[in-house]
């Protein structure tokens, strides 16, 4: 009989080649029964005649605590709920490699990274707004041509006693 780890091992290899890993990490409960699929796989490889194989028979026959979920509880995420794969340019890869001082020159590493960041909603890194100086300058009290004008800097705020009188003379 094939051990459980062998069954899973075989399945994992298939997934790497054919399907994004991510989809299969999200996993259903009663309805989408991976174990029954596994059972079918088991039957095919062993070439035995069909017979009903229940979940319980794949594991030991000891009693199962009712509080502990009997089957994996993750729900499958349909492709439509996962944002599309962002493009990771080679420039970005270079930058990441230099920051982290690790390399992932192999294609697999790149694919791994893309899947990891797929989870986030990311908008395109394009400038969509701006160039509105003529709208913003009128909002200011004191401008000269296209500059906001400030009093001289690098002068520390006066001491507390002097501050009080400075504020007293102001409008309110």
């Amino acid at each position, binding site marked *: 009989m094939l051990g459980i780890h062998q069954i899973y091992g075989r399945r994992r290899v298939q997934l790497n080649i054919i399907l994004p890993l991510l989809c299969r990490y999200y996993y259903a409960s009663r309805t989408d029964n991976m174990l029954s699929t596994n059972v079918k796989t088991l039957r095919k490889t062993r070439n035995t005649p069909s017979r009903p194989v229940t979940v319980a028979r794949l594991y030991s026959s000891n009693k199962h605590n009712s509080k502990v979920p009997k089957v994996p509880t993750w729900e499958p995420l349909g492709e439509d709920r996962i944002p599309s794969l962002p493009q990771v340019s080679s420039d970005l890869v270079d930058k990441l490699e230099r920051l982290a001082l690790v390399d992932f020159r192999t294609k697999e590493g790149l694919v791994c990274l893309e899947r990891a960041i797929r989870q986030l909603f990311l908008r395109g890194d394009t400038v*969509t707004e701006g160039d*509105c100086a003529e709208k913003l300058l009128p*909002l200011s009290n004191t401008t000269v041509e296209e500059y906001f004008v*400030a009093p001289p*800097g690098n*002068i520390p705020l*006066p001491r507390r006693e002097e501050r009080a009188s400075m*504020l007293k003379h*102001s409008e*309110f």
Partner: protein
Amino acid sequence: MPGNRWALRYCGNMLSLTIKEVSLALREGKISPLELCRKCLKRIKKTQHLNAYITVTEELALKQAEEAESRLLQGVYQGILDGIPFAVKDNFCTENIRTTCASRMLKDFLPPYNATVVQKLLDQGAVLVGKTNMDEFAMGSGSTDGVFGPVRNPWSYAAPYREQSGGAEDDSEWVITGGSSGGSGAAVTSLTSFLALGSDTGGSTRNPGALCGAVALKPTYGLLSRHGLIPLVNSMDVPGIVTRSTSDAAIVLEVLQGRDLKDSTTVQSPTSHAGFSEDFDVRNLCVGIPKEYHAPGLSQETLAQWSRLADLLEGAGARVREVSLPHTQHSIVCYHVLCCAEVASNMARFDGLEYGHRSTEDSSTDAMYAASRHEGFNAVVRGRILSGNFFLLQQNYERYFLKAQQVRRLIAEDFEHAFSAGVDVLLTPTTLSDAASYSHFIQADNRTRSTQEDVFTQPANLAGLPAVSVPTALSSRGLPIGLQLIGPAFQDGMLLSVAHWIEQRVGFPSISNYEVPNK
């Protein structure tokens, strides 16, 4: 003729209709958008003593109403909000329309753009009648501390309150609207607009909603865009919706929700959650009553309403049970620390240089900044900025700011535990009591009042959860009492459905019942 009689009967009460009803009336030609707009503007003038509006956008409103009218005549129909007058709290940016946050700092500020939620309403054809009054920079729970003066509760002038206060013409005992979105609460319940936007950071929409007798929704954090909402506390602010009925709130929520590229804290609501339904079966509902929400100072009448609603739900087959949210008592302090810390950061942008009030003091940059901020901000704002800076000092950071973050996590987890234990919705009071008179309210300072008044509302902001206040009855003083429902994140639709069920059964009266109809 039936048509005319219908028109006569409704004209007087047209302004007291819900969005659904008036939208139908518009589409059936029973009233035109221009007439409706004019009625609202006329009523705003008539209710000027309430001080609900800082800016009335009369010309713009009439222009928008004309456009709505021509669309209707052509049979081109923008949606259910087409031609409906609405008001917006004055901390939402409105293009070329003064946006002041009720502060001297922004007294003459004309934003060059519309806030996303405002733009969405305008795109639906709604008609903006004005910007509503508030506490300065949304700091307060009374709408009494804005630079344009306090807002008065419309129920101060309705028969129930006047009669029990002796029926005198004496104007001095008027009551507050609550805050900080008091102007929005007053605008909707004085029938000058059909919906209003508020902001809700610690209860600023639900509080005036309860005290003014309106439906006030605080959506799940991230559901509505904050782009264009001048921020108070980035991690807690949400745009709030004030309407006269739960169905109206659901309509507006549907229009406003959605991811906005200009606000990276928005998310798309998961489609798996149930939307609003007017036929919710409460036999499927489990209602939690958090025992910690009987806080010191809760009035007997509000307590009685709380019990009444619990009985109502239980009697109809809902499961009602007591739950515990053990960290509730600490949430107001936690809120205060985090609020001040974020305020200190958010108010730093107001230095008089690029926009806003600028002092004539010009001896140095720092002096100019200090003077502008001294002149532009009132004492409440300055106080919170100073407190926030204190909490963020290196020697205090861990003890106050980080600790508050940890307590916030505990408070959010309290809710999570309750909801994952089978509770669908929590039922609590919204405020400690009905509206206080202005003379009584101002006897304590803003910070004290906020600490008292926000106690039931701010935990939902800390946890980012949706909450709605529903008016349930008039108190013995003739003033509205509202109760609050809090739901799990993104269950705004279900929350409103339960609120609708309650609304249908409590029989809260319309203010128009107590007024002489308009001509």
